[in-house]
């Protein structure tokens, strides 16, 4: 039955293609009749026509033209259709909660039309007159597919748990989507993290990142070597094309090239979590947003640092395996309701929906100095030949009376480029400055580094990075009144490490610019 239908559909499509493409043709004429554009209608968003003409694709304001031809849309019954495609944690878990919150705030009635767990559509109707105004169409798979659908014009918004790759940026440029690597085409809508998980019955409570990577590369195969019982480690990981698995492999660095062949792969994150929860010898990598009934392991380090994934450590990115959840947008105009929805995502209402869905939101808060005990203790322990007591005293007095903001700036591995979360943080802090949230205060951009190399050059380097972050924030905060707020730069190099320097991620955590407010 299904096959017959599919075959019939195929024939119909062919018949359609056989017709001249006239079917989509439109002619737009300016109201005074002086300008005329003809071509195939690519899209209409309720306000603007996109027409494929001999001059290329043109976007024309609908209010200034009259449309003639068989391709003209029915203006009165226009329903905005926004297609989302990509990562399942965003599409299946976070977005439904955000859409429901958006609908409540904007007074829309929503309906969810479900084909299966991966294909569903939300319709939004005006609560007043019950007119359908939009369809939010979801195709849920993984981040790779999200980008592929964006390139193929089968999606308007890609959902990703990883940053766009260089290759995808150039493919996007070829497809006429603009620069997907640019700040204005990517939105961080929430934070998540990778966490190692085990069953409740497993006695192991913490694992060092290097041990974790050694387990996945097959170097360590028995729980005994990790302080557990004498039993083989049963490894679980998401499917190779899953964004979370890719992020994990990227953190593993070289070790990923020798990924243990006996890893159990799962195409549903949920199945992985349930499997690990039920097997006392299993080890898995899950998203913090859904660890189900499994137990999360703390990340520990040989040099005594511990890192727990929680709301605060994700926002400050002090937890090394933080994963920003991203929306990637094409350079073209999206329908009004899509833009309203994107604006809504930055609101405090949306932030509380993010928390409700089990993710970490990005609202700014201040962490008091009293919460810095562990970090100051680390600084004292690590002090010695390279970092003097005098340097520590300089640091403590510079931060005296200030509070750390719940965001920091971190850099791509081995580069001075900010990572995705930090780029989004530039915008967050710039908007807060513009809205006067920090009027009459002093904002310190405080640079820190890892411990590789000379302490003095590290201090210099961390100062440079802090200055560049400050400059980026000022570039973004165009309407801020410079007389109302003081921005300063401080640098203390390797004086306050937060992780061991023996792994890539450890050094990445240590290289940072913190923001303090006084």
């Amino acid at each position, binding site marked *: 039955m299904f096959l017959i239908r599919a075959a019939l559909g195929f024939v119909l499509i062919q018949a359609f293609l056989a017709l001249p493409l006239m079917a989509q043709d439109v002619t737009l004429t300016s109201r005074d009749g002086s300008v005329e554009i003809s071509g195939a209608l690519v899209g209409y968003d309720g306000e603007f026509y996109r027409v494929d003409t001999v001059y290329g694709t043109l976007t024309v304001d609908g209010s200034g033209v009259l449309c003639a031809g068989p391709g003209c849309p029915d203006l009165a019954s226009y329903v905005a259709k926004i297609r989302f495609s990509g990562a399942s944690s965003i599409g299946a878990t976070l977005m439904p909660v955000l859409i*429901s919150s958006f609908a409540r705030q904007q007074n829309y009635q929503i309906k969810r*039309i*479900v084909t299966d767990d991966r294909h569903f559509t939300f319709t939004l109707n005006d609560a007043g007159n019950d007119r359908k105004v939009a369809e939010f169409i979801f195709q849920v798979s993984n981040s790779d597919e999200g980008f592929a659908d964006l390139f193929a014009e089968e999606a308007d918004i890609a959902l990703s748990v990883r940053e766009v790759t260089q290759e995808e940026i150039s493919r996007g440029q070829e497809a006429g989507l603009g620069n997907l690597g640019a700040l204005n085409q990517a939105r961080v809508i929430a934070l998540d993290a990778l966490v190692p998980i085990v069953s409740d019955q497993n006695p192991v409570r913490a694992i060092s990142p290097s041990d974790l990577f050694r387990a996945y590369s097959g170097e360590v195969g028995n729980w005994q070597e990790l302080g557990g019982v004498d039993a083989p480690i049963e490894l679980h990981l998401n499917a190779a094309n899953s964004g979370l698995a890719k992020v994990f492999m990227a953190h593993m660095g070289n070790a990923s090239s020798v990924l243990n062949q006996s890893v159990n792969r799962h195409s549903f994150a949920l199945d992985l979590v349930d499997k690990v929860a039920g097997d006392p010898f299993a080890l898995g990598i899950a998203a913090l947003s859904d*660890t189900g009934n499994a137990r999360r392991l703390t990340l520990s380090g040989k040099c005594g640092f511990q890192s727990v994934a929680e709301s605060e450590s994700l926002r400050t990115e002090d937890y090394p395996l933080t994963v920003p959840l991203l929306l990637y947008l094409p350079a073209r105009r999206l329908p009004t309701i899509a833009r309203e929805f994107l604006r809504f995502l930055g609101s405090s209402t949306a932030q509380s929906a993010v928390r409700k869905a089990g993710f970490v939101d990005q609202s700014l808060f201040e962490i008091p100095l009293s919460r810095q005990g562990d970090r100051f203790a680390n600084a004292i322990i690590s002090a010695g030949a390279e970092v003097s007591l005098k340097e520590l005293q300089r640091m403590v007095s510079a931060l005296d009376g200030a509070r750390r903001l719940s965001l920091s700036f971190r850099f791509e591995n081995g580069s001075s480029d900010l990572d995705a979360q930090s780029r989004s943080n530039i915008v967050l802090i710039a908007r807060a400055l513009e809205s006067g949230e920090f009027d009459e205060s002093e904002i310190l951009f405080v640079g820190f580094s890892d411990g590789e190399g000379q302490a003095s050059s590290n201090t210099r380097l961390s100062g440079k990075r802090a200055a560049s972050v400050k400059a980026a924030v000022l570039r973004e905060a165009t309407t801020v009144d410079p007389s109302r707020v003081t921005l300063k730069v401080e640098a203390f190099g390797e004086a306050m490490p937060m992780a061991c320097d023996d792994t890539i991620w450890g050094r990445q955590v240590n290289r940072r610019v913190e923001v303090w407010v006084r």
Partner: protein
Amino acid sequence: MIEKRRVFNAGATLIVALGIGHFAQQGDARVKPVDSGGTAQLISSAKDVSQDRSIASAIIPALPTDIGVPILVSSTHTEFSTRVAALDQYTDTSVQSDVQTPPPFVLACDISMTSTPATGAMIDLDLLAPCHRNTVVSIHHAGLEFSGITNESGKYQALIPAMEKNASVTVEFGNGQSATTETVVPALDGYARAALLWSGNSDLHIHALEFGADYGETGHVWFEEPRSPEFGLSANGGFLTRLGEANDLNAKFVEVYSFPADRAIRSGAVRIIVEAGVTAGACGKDITGRIIEVDAGGLTSKTGLVLAMPDCDAIGGYLVLKNLLQDLRIARN
């Protein structure tokens, strides 16, 4: 014969009652079971009538004393029926009686309905609609909607999971008539609820897998292993309520899974799965309904639902939806 007399009585009642309405208006505008002024007088005289006919009053449910004030709304004579709500319990006396002396406060067709809070943040609904015997009624509460059938004496009873603390329940009788009752369910605080509503006699089920339980294990809560609202008190897990009856195609059904989230004695996750059987009646068609979720903080979200069922070559299979209702994340207190 009886039918005829009923009609006659109902007519007479209406006339008398209009008189009462007028009278009551001069006393207290709102008549409650226990009130003052002109109303109190009416009640006492009604009591006299009922005492004379003890057989009749014995089969009629007693009026609740402190909770669940019955409120009556009827499209035909709203004001009047509201005013004389207190007299509902004496409804049927005239039918049993040979005495034709005017039965002044006999209201044969009036609907009496009460709601009281019950264990597990439930609403205990009691309906008596003597003129709607063996009738399909539609019950509404905070977005929940399901069909019920009154028995041969017009009685209907249901335990409904409260979705709002200030809980209002409306029963519609299909002829434009409806009645509403209100109660307060303070125990709802701390309960997380996930509800699935649909119309048509489809094979739809909520399955809750508590704390890693698999299908068929303890902790798998569903239609065939629903547990009772009392289980909610033990804080060990949740319970499932299914409501809705009648066999016609428009019948409406509800399944609600309830979990006492803020009193949980362990932490972990409850997976909530919706399964829709691909039956000969449902294949290739749309099932329409709604989902409602109430979190432990009392926040509610309502979403209309259309399930596009797989084609008929999949008959016998199930559409399994793991992402339709949010899993519950339970933190131990």
